[in-house]
């Protein structure tokens, strides 16, 4: 229907020399044809002469000239294969001259009855006889009952090759520092799972480096209780399911003695249930939203009572009581926002707006507008990852100049090194480590690190934490005289598990199995210099103990938040 309309409006109809009129109808039957030709050329005499506009009804033959009449007929016997595709004609069109265009409109094609046979050449890869046959039926084409379809082996080979190639590409980068010392004492296996590529690899690579530095130093000094450390690391690439897969691999296949894993809270919560089912000690070395009360885990990063309870009252006193929060939309951002709300409201302030931002978002035009509309006194910024940190570039470009607070910028994200000044001006953070720390032990540690990793962009807090955590583990094993989780936890319970880290002395709190820190509150100026506003010698991780978590007595393996406290 629509097709005939197209035909009637086509160039063929509009411009043809027959001017739209249909002429005579000719027939070209097999009797008239007598002999069929197999090439186009000047070798044959014309059989039929027609005028433009005429119709011709042609009896055609199948590709093998009708020689295959049953399924039993073999093409190799019955046909001469070079003489295939017999042509009807030649048909001369009166009045046609060189440079003319000939338009042929095929009105209808009907298969013959009774049906005849042919061969589908596409199904033959090699010129061997008797591949398969296609039976033509009136109105449809039937494939024969016994069907032999062969695809060219080349294609299969190619796809096989592709599969092999894919397997190579998605392979895991596993590297192990081999034990160089005496083979009589088996090595201690350290499992490490940190992103070496992906959305936050820029920040987590220092964790890998810190662990490597610590392992190298400890091995040079004789290892732990005479046993060398063997580092087994995989790259989960910011994929939580890979975190889980590699954790199982480290625990079941590699049988590590201790696990250091995860930067984001999401990855920690993905990994923790798996470790909880084992008796392997798990170090989580990042600052986070706090609240994990789990006997398998030691948290060595900063906590809200160390980072928020110090910073927020100061910011409110200095800048004002109206606060706007932007946070990454996953557990860390949500719970840290909850903590901010709790502390601001406790001190009589007001949250004038909050926006949760999905990871991977990099365009903040509307968010900046919303902040300006709400007119806060200062901004609590908990954006995470490479894409979201574009906020710090776009906000000043849009003219948003407002004091900012955070628990993860500068010390963790080193934005003051990545963005052009004065993007980070007026940013305030409280943290347990930053590379610019003016302390002789810290400076000496930085020098050692940069000797081994001269291209490190910045030694951030999680890098230092990762380094210190290996020494903390060494201390625990030496105190306990064993690597068993139960023995180690008995030592933690004494409250004497302390080491001298580059940041200062850190001790494990028995009730929460988190770490007391020296804390510094810093601010960034227009030239991106880091200035210390206040510092504390020691802030205990007191909150978990306060709400009732006591790992010396029982082990709930839960995470608590201000709105989700343990049931009394």
């Amino acid at each position, binding site marked *: 229907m629509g097709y005939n309309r197209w035909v009637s409006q086509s160039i063929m109809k509009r411009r043809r020399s027959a001017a739209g009129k249909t002429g005579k109808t000719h027939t070209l039957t097999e009797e008239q044809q007598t002999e069929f030709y197999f090439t186009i050329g000047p070798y044959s005499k014309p059989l039929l002469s027609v005028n433009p506009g005429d119709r011709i009804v042609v009896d055609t033959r199948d590709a093998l000239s009708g020689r295959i009449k049953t399924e039993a007929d073999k093409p190799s016997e019955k046909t001469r294969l070079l003489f295939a595709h017999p042509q009807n004609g030649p048909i001369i069109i009166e009045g046609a001259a060189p440079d003319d265009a000939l338009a042929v409109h095929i009105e209808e094609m009907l298969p013959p009855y009774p049906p005849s046979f042919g061969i589908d050449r596409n199904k033959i890869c090699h010129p061997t006889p008797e591949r398969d046959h296609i039976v033509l039926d009136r109105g449809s084409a039937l494939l024969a009952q016994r069907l032999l379809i062969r695809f060219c082996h080349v294609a299969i080979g190619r796809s096989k090759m592709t599969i092999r190639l894919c397997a190579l590409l998605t392979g895991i980068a596993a590297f192990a520092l081999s034990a160089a010392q005496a083979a009589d004492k088996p090595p201690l296996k350290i499992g490490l799972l940190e992103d070496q590529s992906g959305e936050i690899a820029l920040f987590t690579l220092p964790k890998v480096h810190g662990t490597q530095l610590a392992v190298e130093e400890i091995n040079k000094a004789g290892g732990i209780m005479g046993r060398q450390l063997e580092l087994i690391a995989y790259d989960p690439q910011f994929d939580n399911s890979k975190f889980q897969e590699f954790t199982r691999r480290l625990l079941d296949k590699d049988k590590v003695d201790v696990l250091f894993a995860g930067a984001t809270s999401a990855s920690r919560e993905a990994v923790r249930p798996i470790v909880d089912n084992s008796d392997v000690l798990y170090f989580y070395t990042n600052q986070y939203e706090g609240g994990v009360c789990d006997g398998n885990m030691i948290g060595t990063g900063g906590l809200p009572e160390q980072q928020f309870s110090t910073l927020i009252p100061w910011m409110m006193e200095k800048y004002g009581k109206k606060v706007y929060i932007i946070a990454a939309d996953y557990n860390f951002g949500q719970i840290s926002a909850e903590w901010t709300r709790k502390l601001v409201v406790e001190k009589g302030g007001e949250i004038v707006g909050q926006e949760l931002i999905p990871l991977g978002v990099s365009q903040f035009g509307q968010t900046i507008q919303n902040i300006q509309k709400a007119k806060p006194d200062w901004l609590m910024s908990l954006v995470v990852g490479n894409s979201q940190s574009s906020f710090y*570039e776009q906000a000043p470009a849009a003219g948003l100049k407002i004091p900012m607070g955070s628990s993860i910028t500068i010390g963790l994200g080193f934005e003051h090194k990545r963005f052009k000044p004065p993007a980070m001006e007026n940013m305030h953070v409280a943290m347990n480590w930053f590379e610019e720390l003016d302390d002789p032990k810290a400076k000496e540690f930085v020098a050692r690190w940069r000797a081994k990793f001269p291209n490190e962009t910045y030694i951030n807090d999680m890098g230092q934490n990762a380094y210190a955590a290996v020494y903390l583990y060494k201390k625990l094993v030496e105190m306990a005289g064993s690597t068993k989780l139960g023995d180690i936890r008995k030592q933690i319970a004494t409250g004497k598990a302390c080491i001298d880290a580059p940041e200062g002395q850190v001790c494990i709190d028995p009730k929460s199995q988190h770490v007391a820190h020296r804390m510094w509150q810093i601010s960034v100026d227009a030239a991106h210099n880091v200035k210390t506003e206040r510092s504390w010698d020691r802030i205990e991780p007191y909150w978990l103990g306060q709400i009732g978590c006591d790992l010396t007595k029982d082990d709930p393996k839960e995470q608590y938040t201000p709105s989700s406290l343990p049931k009394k």
Partner: protein
Amino acid sequence: MQPTEIVAFVYQISDVFAFLVLAAAGLAIIFGMMGIINMAHGEFIAMGGYVTTYSYHAGAPLALAMLIGAVACGLFGVFLERTIVRRFYHRPIDSLVATWGISLIMTQGALLLLGSGAPGVGTPFGSVSFGGASFSVYRLVLVVVAVAVLVGLYLLFMKTRFGRHARATMQNAAMARALGVPVNKIYSITFGLGAALAGLAGGLYAPTMTLSPMMGTSFVIEAFVTVVAGGADILIGTPPAAVALAIIKATATAFYGQVYGVMSLLVAVCLVVRLMPDGFTGWLIRRRS
């Protein structure tokens, strides 16, 4: 609504419109011409960002650095087309896998060679205030550039000999080849053009973002959504699709935040695919005839 709010709203819509157009242009051209879904699109964007940043730090003025980035990506695109992509023209699923493989190689290669990040370029031009809200001037420049890109593509495809050949190839490649159009060369140049546009987008947005080998991923969702909604023809389909999606996303983000902004975009494309399977291109063509 007050005048300030209207201005702010229009600004936000234009901002998202520019982002969608620039992110999608390269992908739309390659898809419209060859039916190839270029899974390496994000990586071309990242490459443009990197070349621009490195050129800028080597001393080139920013605009020139962006042009260098676009050209470098274009040449690399032509190279890839000649070696890999041209074997997949009639195999859309295989071309997906092949270009995805290219994207993996580019991302991980960049990671290995260049590391996880690089110092960025500051956003130029500063800001302008209007009624209590302030706006980045550079983002207004980006809107102008997006419109210029669309106009430039129109002129290219409608007014030049290459454009005529390209459109002929898009309509019926076999016929075009029979009529003497150098179809393989057209494919190469078009793929290079698509790659160059992706590189341009990366270069244009590099001053506003953190540089990393994965930075292309923040463009890819928007690019694919716009191409699906726009359909195969970049001149007919992409502008109305970009406008419609920009209005939807800006409104959702303004009232409900970023989460709903991204969600609204994806819901919109689900609806578009259901109601207008060929995108705006198919819908407008049908309306015209």
